[in-house]
């Protein structure tokens, strides 16, 4: 291999997570020791091999703990918002922004959160990983480029095609067997960075739109209403499906929702930061959606 070839290799963006990990540690160390950020939100190893945990590092010396692998599927943007969000409270109390490690799905989530004015761009330093899809946010530090995000996205195309080929009755039976498994733990809602409402409709008693017992009908309603609340917002990051203890194929619903929003609203959430938010379908292209 010639020198030139090696040089080219060094210049191209990292294409595997393993390649990106040293750059991540180095960048995090630099940002913290220079005082450019007050913390780095990423993933650390746990005592169990192969299991990672989200972590907020504040010391440069801790940066060697940072890891980047396919177990890092959690959507860290969720930690920024909600009543206990890391960016909540008086901005003056923090004298530097927060760095966040963001895979493509998380980058798109950040775009939606910025559009919905839940976070301020100056408050975050994005250590981003892109893929071949349009993303409406340029990372401050590009860690690398993947062919496709390792979780979420269109991972369910085959299953969706198979389900759509079924008769309605077959599809109902297939889904009802899965709705029956839902234990209504609301993990999907808890991990969703866009479910940042302080009071959720499923916890509401007056009126109680969604029965709290875990029957097939109420579980279906819960997942349906949750999907509709994410209409034009869900970026299909895959966090809900990854969090589901019953392994329900929630990605089928989020993928289908994304497709429907694209056809009805001509809108792909998170793909363009300059667009106005779709506001749950109020931005509908005229003439579409007609039965």
């Amino acid at each position, binding site marked *: 291999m010639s020198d030139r070839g090696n040089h080219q290799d060094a210049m191209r963006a990292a294409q595997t997570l393993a390649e990106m990990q040293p750059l991540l540690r180095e960048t995090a160390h630099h940002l913290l020791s220079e005082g450019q950020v007050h913390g780095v939100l990423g993933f650390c190893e746990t005592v169990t091999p192969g299991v990672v945990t989200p972590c907020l590092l504040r010391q440069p010396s801790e940066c060697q703990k940072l890891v980047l692998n396919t177990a890092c599927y959690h959507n860290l943007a969720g930690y920024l918002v909600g009543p206990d969000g890391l960016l909540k409270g008086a901005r003056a109390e923090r004298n530097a922004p927060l760095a966040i490690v963001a895979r493509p799905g998380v980058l798109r989530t950040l775009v939606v959160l910025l559009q919905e004015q839940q976070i301020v761009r100056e408050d975050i330093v994005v250590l981003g990983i892109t893929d071949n899809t349009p993303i409406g946010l340029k990372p401050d530090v590009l860690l690398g480029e993947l062919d496709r995000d390792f979780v979420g996205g269109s991972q369910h195309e085959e299953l969706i095609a198979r389900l759509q080929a079924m008769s309605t009755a077959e599809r109902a039976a297939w889904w009802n067997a899965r709705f*029956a498994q839902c234990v209504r733990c609301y993990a999907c809602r808890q991990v969703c960075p866009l479910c940042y*409402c302080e009071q959720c409709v499923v916890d509401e008693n007056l009126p109680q*739109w969604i029965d709290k017992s875990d*029957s097939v009908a109420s579980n*279906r309603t819960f997942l349906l*209403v949750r999907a509709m609340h994410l209409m034009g917002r869900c970026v299909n990051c895959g966090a809900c499906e990854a969090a589901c203890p019953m392994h329900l194929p929630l990605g089928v619903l989020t993928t289908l929702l994304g497709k429907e929003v694209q056809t009805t609203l001509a809108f792909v959430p998170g793909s363009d930061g300059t667009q106005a938010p779709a506001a*749950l379908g*109020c931005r509908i292209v005229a003439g579409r959606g007609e039965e």
Partner: protein
Amino acid sequence: MIKSTAFDKSFPKEVMAEPGGEQLVVCSSCGTCAAACVVRQQNPEYNPRRILRMAALGLREKVLSSEEIWQCSACDDCYPRCPKGIHISEVMGAIRQIAIREGYTRPGATAQVNVNRCVACGMCAAACPYEAIKLEEIMIRRSPKRVAQVDPNLCAGCGICNAVCPSGSISLEGYTDREVHDVLLEAMPPDWSGRLLVIICNWSLHAGSDITFAENPPEGVQVIRVSCSGRVTPTFVTTAFDRGAEGVLVVGCDEEECHYREGSRIASGRLQVLGSLLDMMGVDAARVRFTRLTSLDRGKLPTMAQEQQAQLSELGPLDWKGTGGRS
């Protein structure tokens, strides 16, 4: 009898000085606007021609204190029909601006924000056809919080914000979630054996036969009325299914005739997506149908309901509870 001494000659000039109000000068009082007016079809007392005429004559107090100036929802059905090309909703807006300055406020229901629950996601502000909602920082228990704030003088009372709010923080008086839920439960009691729920926009009901149908629906059909089809949320539909309905027909206005500009367009898109998700879950999309009762379709509501009932018969019973059969 109106005496000419009651005329305030400066009032037309005052209206014309407001943005949009300058068009008052060309009105020839032909009354074409009144013939096209959706509000007038519901409330014969309302007459845009008369308001413009009174303003041009200078009946200042009578115009400013009138409730009618607030009833124009800027659907702009009259605008393309006016032979003088007057954008009447803009003239109405100019008159309202003067009324607001004079201390008059909009009568009737407007959207209310529960600031404790509001998370300032901005959905309502983006959805509002009247730009009546702004996100503002206010003090709550001595700490600042960004929340949605409604300008009651701009709010036309459509309830689109209510339907779009994910956290249930903004509601339209008269059509709040609680009120609609109560209406739904009352319409479909636990022993209800009907199959079809019709949710109809107040403004699409014109013809006497349609109103009679809505007030006395036939066996197996229930009808509830909403402020606008854009007020309909997926939870209305799931509640109907929970109560044993096998199908829902949402009736809105023609896109061009929508009293609240965007309502029927929003409803049609939202229900389209809802239908697709339901279809994926094994509930035929055809069970939830959005249809338009345009001004040319007067009297067709009973037929539309019959068609949907026929569609439901064709689809067969709905196993909403997932027990393999109706239980």
